[in-house]
């Protein structure tokens, strides 16, 4: 085991899979010679050659469309979209084609491809570099949407995503890239897609979240412990399709749930989680379902104080946790 950042763990996963399976290749803007804008693919072109780590034109529809074709022909492409909000020109390729090819061809064709994209705020990225866009894809059967919250999960989930025989969207939190660091298993390491994970045990309240918010919730939970409450923290890891069983069990355990996302509140992943709880756990609820999310305004502001206002942080999570615990 070695200590790795979230970013290094992702590079490690790509490196491991490329070494293991020569059908795996990377396609995206600046991923080759430059090694990606964040440096995720640094050294991979050098190691595996320019046909395994290719620079693409500035056209997201092309990146995804090309990868989809390659995947249908038996390759295992890993597309990189430089920032998650730039994925929108490729939504037709993703939602209409990749997600539905297995269904449309009655199982004759499938698309074993991964689309990686850095998302999330808190890095003074403003409108085009701070968004959470997972909900655009989180209602399309045929897709899987994965968002790891820790370096070890990032590696395990990315390897599983590459090996998956259907399209997987893999959203990486930009702020987590260099912020999070932990022991990551070397070599073979997979984490099952579609399984949520209990990151912390507690019996007073349950927090359900994903992405960077998992780390923030863990920080808040340590503070909450000092005032006598123990929080159970569930990391969804896969936001589509959701792991209903874990959501239901974690809710039933305490009867008090707080759902946290940095996305805008209305229509977020947490709206669906809330519906699952409402449908399955009414008679186990000890408090109204609480949600903490970004405000319903168009974008993350650039101004640092305004960004703080928009962005969910450990302080805001702590306040909500305490309110719920004391309910």
């Amino acid at each position, binding site marked *: 085991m070695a200590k790795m950042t979230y970013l290094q763990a992702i590079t490690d996963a790509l490196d491991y899979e490329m070494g293991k399976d020569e059908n795996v290749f990377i396609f995206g803007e600046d991923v080759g010679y430059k090694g990606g804008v964040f440096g995720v693919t640094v050294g991979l072109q050098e190691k595996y050659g320019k046909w395994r780590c290719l620079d693409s034109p500035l056209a997201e529809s092309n990146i995804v469309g090309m990868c989809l074709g390659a995947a249908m022909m038996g390759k295992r492409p890993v597309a990189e979209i430089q920032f998650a909000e730039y994925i929108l020109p490729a939504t037709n390729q993703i939602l209409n084609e990749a997600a539905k090819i297995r269904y449309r061809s009655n199982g004759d064709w499938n698309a074993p491809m991964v689309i990686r994209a850095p998302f999330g705020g808190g890095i003074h990225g403003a409108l085009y570099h701070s968004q959470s866009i997972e909900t655009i894809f989180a209602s399309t059967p045929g897709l899987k949407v994965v968002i790891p919250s820790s370096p070890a999960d990032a590696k395990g989930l990315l390897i599983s995503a590459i090996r998956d025989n259907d399209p997987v969207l893999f959203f990486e939190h930009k702020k987590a890239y260099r912020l999070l660091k932990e022991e990551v298993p070397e070599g073979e390491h997979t984490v099952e897609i579609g399984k949520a994970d209990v990151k912390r045990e507690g*019996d*007073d309240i349950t927090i359900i979240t994903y992405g960077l918010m998992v780390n923030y919730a863990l920080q808040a939970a340590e503070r909450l412990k000092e*005032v*006598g*409450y123990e929080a159970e923290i569930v990391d969804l890891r896969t936001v589509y399709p959701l792991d209903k069983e874990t959501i239901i069990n974690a809710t039933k355990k*305490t*009867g*008090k749930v707080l759902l946290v996302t940095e996305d805008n509140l209305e229509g977020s992943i947490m709206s669906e989680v809330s519906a699952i709880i409402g449908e399955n756990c*009414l*008679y*186990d*609820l*000890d*408090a109204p379902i609480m949600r903490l999310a970004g405000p319903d305004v168009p974008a993350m502001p650039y101004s640092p104080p305004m960004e703080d206002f928009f962005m969910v942080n450990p302080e805001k999570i702590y306040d909500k946790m305490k309110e719920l*615990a*004391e*309910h």
Partner: protein
Amino acid sequence: MEEIKMPKLGESVTEGTIEKWLVSPGDTVEEYDPICEVISDKVTAEVPSVFAGTIKELIAQEGDTIEVGGVICTIETEGGSASSETPSVDKKEDVESVAAPTKEAAVEEKSEGASEETKHVTQQVEKPENARISPVVMRLASENNVDLNQVSGTGFEGRITKKDILKFIEEGPKSAPVQEEPKAPETTTTEKAAPTQTASAPSAGEEIPVAGVRKAIAAKMVQSSTEIPHAWLMMEVDATNLVKVRTHHKESFKKKEGFNLTFFSFFVKAVAEAVKEYPIMNSSWQGDKIIVNKDINVSIAVAGDDKLYVPVIKNADDLSIKGVAKQVSELANLGRNHKLTSAHMSGGTITVNNTGAFGSIQSMGIINHPQAAILQVESIVKRPVIIDGMIAQRDMVNLCLSIDHRILDGLVAGNFLKLVKEKIENMSIESSSIY
């Protein structure tokens, strides 16, 4: 044969205690004849028979507390025997009555009722008044047959949390002191409780069982003092003019009317008038809203032996001082003889309490839930007071006001109290009419 059930004695009343049976099995009663006295929430009420007939069996005993709707006795009605033979829909609904030892109940019906009964029992959960019960707490209470009134809550505003009820189910009803800390180690309560019992307790004297009116008073007081955030104000009032007015009328009034012209009546009247100017004093906290009452119904405290009654002077603002004095006199008489009924005691919107009657000069009253204020009229005492740089002997009285701070702020309460003060101080034989 018909059943007589515990009637609902008030909006928020869920049960009543049989104080005394006024009939015995075999007695013939007419419809509306009183059959027993029931105590609930400071009120003693007579339960009228809803049928004419012969009392068959007294199912509830004196001292028993019966839920509203519970059968208290059975009665044989004239000519009603034919219809009672066939099981009525009413009986099937009330499973408890099927299980009760009535001869008519067929064996078949009993076995059918048995499974229903267990279902019925688990669903019967006492829901504390005005409480917010979460779905999980309600479910656990019904599954484990827990009376939620027995569970003390540690959640927001005393709400019973899932943890509270799980702890209650695990530990039983014995240990349930309200815990102030959000989460204390489980052991502290039992450890704390133990030494108080083993420590050298003072030798026990007489034991007074808590029941009936005392129990109702206790429950009401706890509710008032825990639910309502009280704030207190006291104002010193110069009652010299009032004393003059009252002394002037005292003898002739007694001769003419046959009852006393009390100081207290002047205060009740003054309060009723002041409430007219500050109607918010006459309101009630209802959780999500404040209800400002239109009628000014003044509750007054009347003691009878060891009991405390709070009868109501309805529309006190409509009455003259004589009218108020008459009501005070009548209600006090009824109270002393334990003849006050729920009708006398319901509908109060603000309370005036005559604490001065026993010599008190200062007190902090507990508000009569769900009212917003209580005014304590203290003793009128002669004291030296400085007026215009000279010392004068004046009749002084303290008015102590307790307010529900959720509804009332110091300013409005202070203005209200000042107005009462002015009304008392500005009395004069010429201008103040008794009639």
